[in-house]
C-alpha cells in the first residue's frame, strides 16, 4: 500500500505552557485507510494533527504527503496538498447558510459578485455526489450539530481533500448521527480517501478503523491493526494502567426531595414551546438520568432548571425554596452546581486565565474575596487544587486557559462545579471529550457525590452512561416526559421505545405487537 501521510520525528514544544506536546512522533498512514488516533487528554493528538494541517509549526520533523516531502506552514498549503480538517470545536459562521459556509473564500463569482443560486446548486451537487443530503439554504444557526458536522466535512470535500482529519467528530453527536457519520467515512475511504480520526470512543475505533495509533504524553507509543487489539488493550495502552470500564456502585438510598419541577413550560430558541408540562423530582442521594434523542426538549428543560432560560409556566423548587424565577446566583447560593453542555461559551471564558475561570462561582465569598477585593492567593490555591484533584494536565495557574486541550478544559469545569459538596448537581454531558481514564474518574466522582447526599440530574447522549450511572431514568420525547423507569427495570429496548415516542403500557396491544 502506498503511504498517504508520513510524519517523521515530529517534535513540538510549547514554551508558554512548558509542554512537550509531540515528542519524536513517527506516524505513517496508508492510502485509503481509516486510521484512528487515541490517547489521553492532552496527549498531543490535536497538536499532531494541527501540525499536519499547518496550524501549528513543529520545532523539528518532516512531513511527507504521497511519499513526497512537503512543507506545510499554513492551512492554505495543507488544503493545496489535499488535506482537510474538521476541528474539535467547529468553525462555521452561524449566521451564514450552509452553502455560504461551504463556499466561503472560494465563492463562484462574476466580476466580483457572488451568485448565490449557483453557489447553492454547486453545494447541492457536491452533497448529492457523496450521498450526504443537506439543504444548502438553511442557516447554520438553525441546524443540528450532526448537520453542522456534515457541513464541515463537505467543506473539506469541496476543497478536494484526499486526506481528511476528523478531531473527535462524534463527541457531540447522537448515536444515530454517529452511525450516519461512520457510514460516510467508510464510503469516503472506499472511494480512496484517507481518514485520520481522533476519538476517545474505543468502541467506535473497533467499529470503523483499520489501524490505530496510540499516543501517550506526546509520544506515539504504537500503531496496531484494530483487529489485533481489544478495547481493553487500547485503554490500557493509553492510560498505562488497568482501566475499569464498568461503574461500580451500590444501590441508591434516596433521601428528601432536593429538586422539584412541576408542570414546567419552557420556550425553545425560536419562541415555540419546547417543554410541555414536565414534572420531575430528584432526591438527595440519587442520580436521575434524562434520556432522549437530542432536540426533544432536554436542553431547554435543563436550562430552565439551571436558570439559563426563562420559565413560562409551572414552578421549580430547590431544597424547599421556590426558585422558578430566581437568578442563577440565587440558585447557586441555594446549593446548585451546573456542568453545562457547552464548555466553550458557557462553561468557560476562553479570553481569560485559569484562575479567573475557576473563581466565577465563588468570587463573592470569603476567602476568595474580602471587602470587594479579590484574594489571589486563595483563588490560586483553589485552582491548584482542581489541577491536582482532576489531573488537569499541563495547566498552570495564571496562564491563559485556551491552550488547554479539550478534555482538560472539561476537567476544569468539573472541578469547579463539583468542589464543595453541592446539594444539587446538573450534569449535562459531563464526560464529553474525556479519555477513558478520566471518564472512569468522573463517574466515580459523581457516584461519590451521590453517596455523600447530592441530588444529581444527569443528561447524556450516551445511553450507556445513563444506564450505568442513573438510579432512575426519565425519558423525554417531543417536550414531554414519556416515562420514569427504575434502573432495576430499565433496559435499552424499553428506553428506545419511549425515546421514539412509544408507550410501555400493557393495555396497548397494538403497540406490543409492533
Amino acid at each position, binding site marked *: 500500500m502506498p503511504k498517504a501521510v508520513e510524519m517523521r520525528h515530529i*517534535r513540538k514544544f510549547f514554551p508558554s505552557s512548558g509542554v512537550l506536546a509531540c*515528542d519524536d512522533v513517527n506516524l505513517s498512514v496508508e492510502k485509503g485507510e481509516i486510521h484512528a488516533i487515541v490517547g489521553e487528554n492532552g496527549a498531543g493528538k490535536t497538536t499532531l494533527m494541527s501540525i499536519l494541517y499547518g496550524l501549528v509549526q513543529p520545532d523539528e520533523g518532516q512531513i511527507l504527503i504521497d511519499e513526497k516531502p512537503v512543507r506545510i506552514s*499554513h492551512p492554505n498549503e495543507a488544503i493545496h496538498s489535499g488535506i482537510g480538517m474538521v476541528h474539535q470545536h467547529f468553525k462555521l459562521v452561524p449566521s451564514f447558510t450552509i452553502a455560504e459556509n461551504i463556499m466561503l473564500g472560494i465563492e463562484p463569482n462574476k466580476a466580483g459578485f457572488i451568485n448565490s443560486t449557483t453557489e447553492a446548486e454547486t453545494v447541492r451537487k457536491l452533497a448529492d455526489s457523496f450521498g450526504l443530503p443537506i439543504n444548502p439554504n438553511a442557516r447554520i444557526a438553525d441546524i443540528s450539530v450532526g448537520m453542522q458536522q456534515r457541513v464541515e466535512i463537505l467543506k473539506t470535500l469541496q476543497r478536494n481533500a484526499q486526506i481528511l482529519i476528523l478531531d473527535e467528530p462524534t463527541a457531540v453527536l447522537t448515536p444515530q448521527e454517529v452511525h450516519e457519520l461512520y457510514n460516510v467515512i467508510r464510503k469516503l475511504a472506499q472511494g480512496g480517501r484517507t481518514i485520520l480520526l481522533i476519538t476517545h470512543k474505543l468502541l467506535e475505533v473497533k467499529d470503523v478503523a483499520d489501524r490505530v495509533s496510540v499516543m501517550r504524553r506526546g509520544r506515539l507509543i504504537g500503531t496496531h491493526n484494530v483487529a489485533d487489539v481489544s478495547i481493553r488493550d487500547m485503554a490500557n495502552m493509553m492510560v498505562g494502567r488497568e482501566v475499569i470500564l464498568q461503574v461500580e456502585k451500590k444501590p441508591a438510598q434516596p433521601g428528601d426531595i432536593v429538586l422539584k419541577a412541576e408542570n414546567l413550560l419552557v420556550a425553545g430558541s425560536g419562541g415555540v414551546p419546547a417543554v410541555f408540562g414536565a414534572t420531575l423530582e430528584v432526591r438527595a442521594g440519587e442520580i436521575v438520568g434524562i434520556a432522549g434523542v437530542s432536540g426533544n426538549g432536554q436542553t431547554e428543560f435543563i436550562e430552565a432548571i439551571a436558570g439559563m432560560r426563562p420559565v413560562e409556566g409551572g414552578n421549580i423548587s430547590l431544597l424547599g425554596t421556590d426558585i422558578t424565577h430566581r437568578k442563577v446566583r440565587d440558585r447557586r447560593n441555594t446549593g446548585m452546581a451546573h456542568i453545562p453542555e457547552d464548555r466553550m461559551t*458557557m462553561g468557560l471564558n476562553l479570553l481569560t486565565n485559569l484562575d*479567573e475561570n475557576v473563581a466565577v462561582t465563588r468570587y463573592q465569598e470569603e476567602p476568595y474575596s474580602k471587602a470587594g477585593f479579590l484574594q489571589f492567593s486563595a483563588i490560586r490555591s483553589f485552582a491548584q487544587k482542581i489541577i491536582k484533584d482532576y489531573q488537569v494536565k499541563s495547566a498552570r495557574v495564571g496562564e491563559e486557559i485556551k491552550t488547554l486541550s479539550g478534555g482538560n478544559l472539561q476537567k476544569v469545569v468539573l472541578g469547579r462545579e463539583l468542589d464543595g459538596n453541592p446539594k444539587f448537581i446538573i450534569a449535562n454531558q459531563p464526560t464529553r471529550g474525556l479519555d477513558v481514564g478520566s471518564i472512569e474518574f468522573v463517574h466515580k466522582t459523581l457516584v461519590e457525590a451521590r453517596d455523600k447526599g447530592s441530588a444529581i440530574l444527569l443528561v447524556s447522549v450516551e445511553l450507556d452512561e445513563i444506564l450505568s450511572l442513573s438510579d432512575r431514568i426519565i425519558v423525554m420525547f417531543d417536550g414531554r416526559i414519556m416515562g420514569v423507569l427504575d434502573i432495576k427495570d430499565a433496559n435499552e429496548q424499553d428506553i428506545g421505545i419511549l425515546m421514539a415516542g412509544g408507550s410501555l403500557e400493557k393495555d396497548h396491544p397494538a403497540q406490543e405487537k409492533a
Partner: protein
Amino acid sequence: MIINRLRRLVENITIPVLAVILGLLASVFFVALANADPIQTYRNLFCEGFGPQGCETFSDLVIIRVEQEDGTSQSFFSPFYGENGHSLAIVIERATILILTALSATVAFKAGMFSIGMDGQLVLGALTAVFLGVWLPKQIYALAGVPDADSAPEALRTIMHLIVPLICILAAMTVGAFYSWIAGFLKVKLNVNELISTIILNSIATQVAIWLIAFPLRSPDPNSTPRTDRIDDTAWLIPFNRVLLPDVEWLEGARVGIGIVFALIALVVIGIYLYRTTAGYEQRMTRGSRLFARFGGIPSDRAAIRAMLISGALSGLAGAIQILGVDRRVVGEFASVGYGFDGVLVAILARESIAGILLVACFYAGLQQGATNLQFGNLPRQLGGIIIAFIILFNSMENFFRSNIARLQSRIRPNRGQAAPESASGATS
C-alpha cells in the same frame, strides 16, 4: 513564570514598535509628496515633539551640547535639559487628557462594551465645567456681598480655590457618567448596539455644544468668534509653573498642573478596580462571553452599566481638566477636536493595558505636538495625522505579523533541527 512574563512582554512590545517603524517608513511617501526631505522632517518631528529647546539632530534627543556664555560647551542629558522650556512638558500637558479618555475607553471595552462615546461625554463635561466655573463664583461673590473677584477677601478666595474646581469636576463627571449611562441602558434593556448609540450621542452632544457656545453661553464680547467667557480665577487649576514650581524652567510654557496628578491617580485606581476588585472582575468576565457570566451568576447587566458609568465619568473628568487647567474657556471648535476619539485610539494601541496607556498617550501626545509644530516649516499639519494613522494600521495587523514571524521561525528552525536531530532530542529526554 517570570521567563514567561518576560517573553510575553517582549512579544507585546515588539509589534507596536514594529508598527511605529513601519508607520514612519510608509509615511515617507507623503513627506516626499509634500516635497520635503524625510530625514529632516522626522528629525523636526521628533525634536519638536520630544526634544529640548535647540534640538536639531536625532542625537540631541538624548545628549545635547550647549554653548556656554564663556565660549566653552557643555553636554546635558536632553530630557532633563530645561532651558527655556522642554517639549516633554507639553507632552505631559497633552497626555493628560489622552490618558483619561483612553482609560474611559478601556473601562468600557473591558466590559465588552464597544463604546466610543468619549467625545460626547467629554464635551458635555467641559461645558458643565465652564458653566459652573463662570457662574458659581459669581453667585458666591453676590452672596458674600462683594462686587467682583478683586474685592473678595483673601480667605474667601482661598477657600473657593479649593472647592470651586472640585465642584466643577464632580459635576462634569456626573454629566459624563449620565451621558454614557444612556448608551449602557439602551444596550442592556433594548439591546441597542452601543457603537451606534454612542456615535449618535456624540453628534447630538457636538451640536448641542455648538449651539450653547454660539448663543446662551457666548461671551458678550462682540467682536470675538463664538466662545464662552473665561472661567473665574478661583475655578482655575493653576499650572505648576505659576504657583508650585515657578522656578522650574523645564515647565515653561506648559500648562501642566494638578490635572496630570489626577490622571495618574486615575490610572492606578482604574488598574486596581479592573484587576483587583470583584466589581472589576465581574465586568471583565462579562466580556467575551455574556453566557459564561450569566452561567456563573455574574450580574452582567449591572456590570456593563457600571462600566459605562465609570467610563463616562472619566471622560467628563478629562473635559473638566482640559477646561479648568488648560483652556479656561470653551471655544467654538472645541466640540470637533476629537480628544475623545484620540483616547480610543490610544486605548487600542495600548492593547487596553494600563501601563501601555501611559506610554502610548505620551508617545501620541509627542507626535501630535511635533506635527502641529511642523506646519511652521513647509509641511502640512496633517502629516502627523497620517503618520499616526499608519502606525495604527500596522499595529492592527498584529495577526499578520504574528503568523509571519511564526512562519519565519519555522523556515529557519527545521534546517537547524534536521542538521542535529540527535543532540536536540537528547537534550529533552
